[in-house]
């Protein structure tokens, strides 16, 4: 590796207790394993896609990486600095706070209803970078222009903005701080298809213009394929496959990725031979540590999958797959 990575995540876990520890039996509270043993790397200038079905832990992972919540275990190294030592509540005033930013899923909900578009963008700039007066105005102006927000919208409240305009405010707020890592948590999920395209183009342009690294969380595989350099596929809190986006989608190695790719609707009528995924995921509450999470839903699973959890194995072309039966080509 020629450069040290911008973000180096190792063995990250997030578990939520449900209910309480039983006093009578002394058994600990059951835990939801939302993110389990996730390791990933983001290089400078890279776009990493994070895909998986609803409830697979991708939004929880995004929140962990954005330092909005504390990990249960594991490490997050950002630009060579270990961040998990600092609790999320203290990180709010850390100098590195401005360097990691996030664009939220629902742009409308993520703008304070009592803030105008200008206030929403200016708040973080004022707070984290100490801008005020005309310097603040100039910074907001620059961010708004980069995101294609006309001046006329500045004094509007979120309920007076359209979905696309709100998305632009959300993006402008994040990039105004000139972050090095921008986490995009399904930034286009709440938008019309026509607006999605313009927002995606905007994100693509900002990336080259400002040299930001993206973590792009999405369940839209077509978007991920177009936008991302590499992709991480998650299933029930664990990474099942990592690799260059093109390679992963063209020739998926993990049976879950195959099912995911096969489930993308196509207009040309060609149906892939891969059987569709059926059934529901296993419970994420206290899962068996020695069984593959995908077992039971997996078309090729055997007894071996309930005896040993498959670890990520390396494959050519910088790919990694967590399946006992994955073979090259």
């Amino acid at each position, binding site marked *: 590796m020629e450069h040290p990575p911008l973000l180096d995540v190792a063995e990250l876990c997030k578990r939520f207790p449900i209910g309480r520890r039983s006093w009578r039996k002394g058994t600990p509270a059951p835990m939801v394993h939302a993110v389990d043993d996730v390791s990933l790397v983001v290089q400078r200038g890279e776009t990493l896609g994070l895909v998986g079905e609803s409830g697979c832990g991708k939004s929880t992972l995004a929140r962990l990486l954005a330092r909005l919540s504390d990990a249960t275990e594991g490490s997050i190294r950002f630009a060579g600095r270990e961040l998990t030592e600092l609790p999320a509540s203290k990180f709010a005033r850390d100098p590195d706070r401005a360097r990691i930013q996030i664009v939220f899923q629902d742009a409308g*909900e993520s703008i304070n209803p009592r803030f105008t578009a200008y206030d*929403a963008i200016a708040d973080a700039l004022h707070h984290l970078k100490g801008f005020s007066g005309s310097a603040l105005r100039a910074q907001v102006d620059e961010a708004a222009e980069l995101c294609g927000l006309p001046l006329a919208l500045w004094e509007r409240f979120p*309920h007076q903005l359209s979905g696309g305009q709100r998305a632009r405010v959300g993006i402008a707020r994040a990039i105004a701080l000139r972050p090095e890592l921008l986490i995009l948590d399904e930034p286009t999920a709440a938008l019309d298809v026509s607006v999605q395209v313009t927002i995606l183009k905007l994100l693509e342009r900002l990336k080259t213009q400002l040299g930001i690294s993206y973590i792009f969380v999405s369940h839209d595989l077509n978007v991920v394929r177009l936008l991302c350099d590499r992709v991480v596929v998650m299933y029930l809190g664990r990474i099942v496959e990592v690799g260059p986006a093109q390679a992963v989608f063209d020739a998926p190695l993990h049976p879950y990725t195959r099912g995911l790719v096969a489930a993308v609707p196509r207009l040309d009528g060609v149906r892939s031979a891969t059987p569709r995924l059926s059934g529901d995921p296993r419970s994420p509450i206290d899962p068996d540590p020695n069984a593959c999470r995908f077992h039971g839903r997996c078309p090729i699973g055997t007894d071996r999958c309930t005896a040993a959890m498959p670890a990520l194995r390396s494959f050519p072309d910088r790919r990694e797959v967590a399946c006992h039966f994955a073979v090259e080509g």
Partner: protein
Amino acid sequence: MKGLAAPLRHARFVVTENPVTGFALALFILFIVAAVFGPSLAPHDPLASNTAQALQPPSGQYWFGTDQLGRDIFSRALVAARLDIGIAAASVALVFAMGGFAGLASGFFGGWTDALVGRLSDTIMAFPLFVLAMAIVAALGNTVPNIVLATAIINFPLYVRVARAETTTRRDAGFVDAARVAGHRDMGVLLGQVMPNIMPLMVVQMSLTMGYAILNAAGLSFIGLGVRPPTPEWGIMVAEGASFIVSGEWWVALFPGATLMVAVFCFNLLGDGLRDIVDPRRRT
């Protein structure tokens, strides 16, 4: 000032759109004028007794008539506005600060903060509120600050409930996360982001409890646990006039009582109007 022009324009729109609010506002201004300038506006000395003029019916000289000591009831009702509205405003401000913050903190942090605040307001609500106010004033002493405190305490659960309910629905809102990413810590999020959003309902609550607080202060005085005679106060005046109703001197109790009623009415109507003004969703 572009920051002030828009709300002012909106306020004018609300007042003209809803004449009842305009009416309440006019009454409110009237009461404020009475509270501020009452003593200098009063046509007669509210404390000067004149037994020769005792129990005169309403006339051109004595608009509301005179009481058993010949004091002008209009002057007394006018001067009493300062004390009654002052007590109510002070207690509402006090409970707004205490109850509002307790409710915000309990809704935002949950856990033991919530348990503590919740049990405290449950305890207060376990008593009949007026009896509790009586007990507080009786125990602490018959002074104006104690009436203010008692009135504030009995309204505490109301404010906690409103603030807590409004905060819990916003605690997990996207803009709270956005504020954290923008470098705000818990207190900054609580006071700078969540509080402005619950203000509209708190303001409505303030105006509604303002009426209730006036009633409570007057009620305490009516039963002799509040302000003492001969101080002009609506509750005392009604109490003093009550015995004369049977003998036909209805004006002694009626006019202070009507003034009290109109004041409560005014604050309740104003509450609804204020909500329209502070809600940005109607600012279009």
